[in-house]
């Protein structure tokens, strides 16, 4: 007699559903997802959410404290900076800058890294050696140092800082993709694809790559976290976003001189960075547990 529940046999389901439900059960990952949602929504809806223009200076509202201070007002909930600009509005627009930075720099690294990883994993031989030696050279620089040096040469700007971050992240993706592709190439379906005469391009991108997506998704999520952190660090050093761009790291840099007079100017951008990065790290960890048990630390 057939089991009534046979259609719910877990082995019949696509593993994707198991992974989603596993992710959903992971409370910290859900927390990360919530933080990221808030972050992305404030980035997209910045013009509607922010009470003031982030660049508008107000001569008579300089260094107003947050609303819970004795002299704070509801007009500037989180206070104002030394030029009278509303900190809450700058934070909300800052989410936009950080999100764009994360998407572009990680996206660039993802594209280049995946391409290089595919080539070296699939063709092996001298192409692999050359690509992987180049990756080793990039990895021979301590994190952030290479980014700082690249920006130092290209000149400080948000765009150049994104390029610098992208360059430093390429090896992460290249290594992961190469490892997965090497593993997948041994499997029968690749030989089958070759036997029916599929071209290399098709084998790599249609057959192999979708099977390597798990680790790539994890790395991309964690990459968002570190890109936000690194861009904030570069901007803090004066190498990333230039004034008056409302960028969190640049806001902290400007607040250094005011540290005693107005600590709130420094506090909130730092918390914003911390939460945004934490959100992506929480989700990345959850995804790693759900998608790729091999990568668990």
């Amino acid at each position, binding site marked *: 007699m057939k089991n009534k529940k046979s259609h719910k046999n877990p082995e019949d389901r696509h593993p994707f559903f198991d992974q989603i439900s596993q992710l959903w059960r992971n409370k910290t990952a859900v927390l990360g997802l919530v933080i990221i949602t808030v972050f992305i929504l404030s980035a997209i809806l910045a013009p509607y959410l922010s009470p003031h223009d982030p660049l508008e200076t107000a001569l008579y509202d300089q260094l107003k404290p947050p609303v819970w201070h004795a002299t704070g007002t509801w007009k500037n909930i989180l206070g104002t900076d030394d030029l009278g600009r509303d900190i809450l509005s700058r934070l909300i627009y800052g989410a936009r800058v950080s999100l764009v930075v994360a998407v572009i720099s990680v996206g660039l690294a993802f594209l280049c890294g995946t391409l290089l990883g595919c080539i070296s994993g699939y063709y092996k031989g001298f192409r692999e050696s050359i690509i992987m030696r180049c990756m080793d050279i990039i990895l021979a620089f*301590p994190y952030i140092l290479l980014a700082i040096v690249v920006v130092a040469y290209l000149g400080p700007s948000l765009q150049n800082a994104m390029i610098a971050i992208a360059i430093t992240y390429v090896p992460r993706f290249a290594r992961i993709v190469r490892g997965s592709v090497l593993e997948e190439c041994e499997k029968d379906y690749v030989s089958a694809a070759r036997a029916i005469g599929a071209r290399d391009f098709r084998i790599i991108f249609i057959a192999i790559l979708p099977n390597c997506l798990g680790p790539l998704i994890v790395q991309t999520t964690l990459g968002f976290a570190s890109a936000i952190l690194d861009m904030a660090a570069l901007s803090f050093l004066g190498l990333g976003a230039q004034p008056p761009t409302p960028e969190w790291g640049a806001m902290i840099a400007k607040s250094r001189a005011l540290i005693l007079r107005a600590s709130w100017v420094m506090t909130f951008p730092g918390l914003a960075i911390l939460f945004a990065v*934490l959100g992506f790290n929480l989700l990345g960890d959850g995804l790693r547990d759900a998608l790729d048990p091999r990568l668990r630390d």
Partner: protein
Amino acid sequence: MLAYIIRRIFVLIPTLLGVSILVFLMLHLTPGDPAELLMGERASEEALQEIREHLGLNKPLYEQYGLFLKQLMQGDLGETIWTRQKVWIEVKQRFPATIELSIVALFISCFAGMILGIISATKQYSIFDYLSMLGALVGVSMPIFWLGLVFMLIFALNLGWLPMSGRLTVGVELETITNLYILDAIITRNWAALRDALWHIIMPAVTLSTIPTAIVARMTRSAMLEVLRQDYIKTAKAKGLSQFIVIFKHALRNALIPVVTTIGLQFGVLLGGAILTETIFAWPGVGKWMYDAVMQRDYMVIRSGTLFIATIFVLINLCVDVLYAVINPRISVK
């Protein structure tokens, strides 16, 4: 073993050569005239010509690189662009400060990270475990330049417990031998200076150690959990050994293998993170020096400093690899 070490060193050579080529080419890959990049846009034609002559910028590239490499082989890191001083003198003075800071930070992160990791692993799924692992994730996500400023605000400006910046209070005498102030103070039995040096290093070291502490804690926890599941731990418990002995004598020893690698790799991360920390706390190390060079657009210092730090980083990674092979008899040295 020796063969393995020698082979690893040989593998390093192409990487280091590649690093030197990359660092060398950066000046030439940047759009525009290298001499103008070095001297600034407002430099006169004579000044540009002079710098071209001085640095050999008008020779073919391969010749310039050959000269660069030859100088490096002789331990010459070149000159600063503005003051034309030997870069090596500055590095010798500043590197000990960075090493001292990194070692203290590494020590803090080993100690704190391993203790957190061990307790979390032995009390898995307890409140302590959840809190410390969430704390570790917060630590990994921390913008340390911000944390440093927060520490500064609380402990230096508001409470007045710790000094704001620098390595020693002005006026404190210390005879420098190694330039590692803590070590120097101990060697010369100068306890006042030792106290002062320790007081100065606490804040920057704790700031710098945040991310490594979190990483070590996570690594220790997962390595311990792996080991605690094994049969020989059950045997040890069944023999009636105390929890303490089982954890520290039986489990920790095997769990340490991956942890040591993680700790070793953090040393390189610290070298990079030092740029931020040293800048905030005005710590006179290599990181602050690099930052100043970037601000003054002294590309000669940037070039030599990058090469120096990258070389140290690569060498440390080599040591970690070798150490890993030494302490883990299970990996066959291929």
